[in-house]
């Protein structure tokens, strides 16, 4: 059947109500239209009825769309988190582990001098890099008129917030104490080194993940 513009708008309205994310909306929209286009034109059933018939047969009904969407969001979130964890784990595998070790030794050495503040500044910047990158992205996207949000975008927005939460959670009085102590002991220096290394690895793994995802986004 030939679907008119009005009918397409009607379908958009029906789907808009039951879908939250762009990924689900556009996939279901294309599926329903493809199915209807192959059907014969009949006058005995309304367009809305035909839409519901396709949705019932192929998706288990409109009410199943939010369920499907929730599962999908969960899968994507897990996938992205797993990727970042894998990127972080790479820093403990060859050849990256060599850089990790060199950085750790250098930071440990720096921790006993006043130059630590430089390393610290870089590490804090790395830790907050998700927040900075996502902040820029959000400002940029604010000027582009878009429909529904995408699952991945939402996930990245959350990661931007996690950066700040992690920074506040992991950054105890350790650092402020450090600058008050005249001769910090070995344990204190090791803790400072571990903290800075955590900041660096978290930030770098996020940047790697973000770059890969942006590349995929551009490619699609």
């Amino acid at each position, binding site marked *: 059947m030939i679907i008119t513009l009005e009918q397409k708008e009607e379908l958009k309205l029906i789907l808009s109500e039951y879908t939250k994310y762009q990924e689900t909306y556009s*996939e279901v929209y294309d599926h329903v*239209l*493809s*199915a209807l286009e192959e059907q014969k034109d009949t006058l005995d059933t309304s367009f809305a009825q035909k839409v519901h018939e396709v949705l019932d*047969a192929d998706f288990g009904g409109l009410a199943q769309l939010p369920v499907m969407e929730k599962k999908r969001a969960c899968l*994507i979130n897990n996938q992205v988190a797993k990727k970042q964890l894998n990127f972080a784990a790479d820093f403990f595998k060859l050849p990256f582990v060599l850089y990790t070790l060199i950085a750790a030794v250098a930071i440990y050495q720096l921790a006993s001098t006043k130059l630590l503040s430089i390393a610290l500044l870089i590490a804090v910047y790395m830790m907050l890099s998700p927040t900075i990158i996502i902040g820029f992205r959000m400002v940029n996207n604010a000027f582009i008129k878009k429909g529904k949000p995408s699952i991945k975008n939402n996930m990245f927005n959350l990661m931007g917030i996690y950066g700040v939460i992690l920074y506040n959670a992991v950054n105890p009085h350790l650092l402020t104490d450090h600058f008050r102590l005249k001769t910090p002991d070995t344990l204190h220096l090791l803790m400072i080194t571990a903290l800075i290394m955590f900041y660096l690895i978290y930030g770098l793994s996020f940047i790697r993940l973000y770059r890969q995802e942006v590349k995929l986004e551009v490619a*699609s």
Partner: protein
Amino acid sequence: MLKGTLQTIILKLLEDNEQMYGYEITQKVKELTAGEMKLTEGALYPALHKLEADGLLETYNEIVDNRVRKYYRLTEQGGQQVATKLQEAQNFIQQLQFLLNLTPHTS
């Protein structure tokens, strides 16, 4: 349909057809089974999304008739999995046949 077989069907279809979109997959299954098998009740998309999340499929979008169409295709890892999944399915069917005494035991 038995649990897990849908993923094998999708992987095999994509191996044969390189790239497909959701509706096309449902139609292909219908066509190959002469309408005997229908992918219904929202089984197809969750399976596609799971395969994508597992890294066996990748997607890309194309604009067709002014709308976004999402195509699925096998990743390298997915391509390697097809033979294994097919072998697993074949073994399972064979065992089922033995269990139901549909074919005589050959040992």
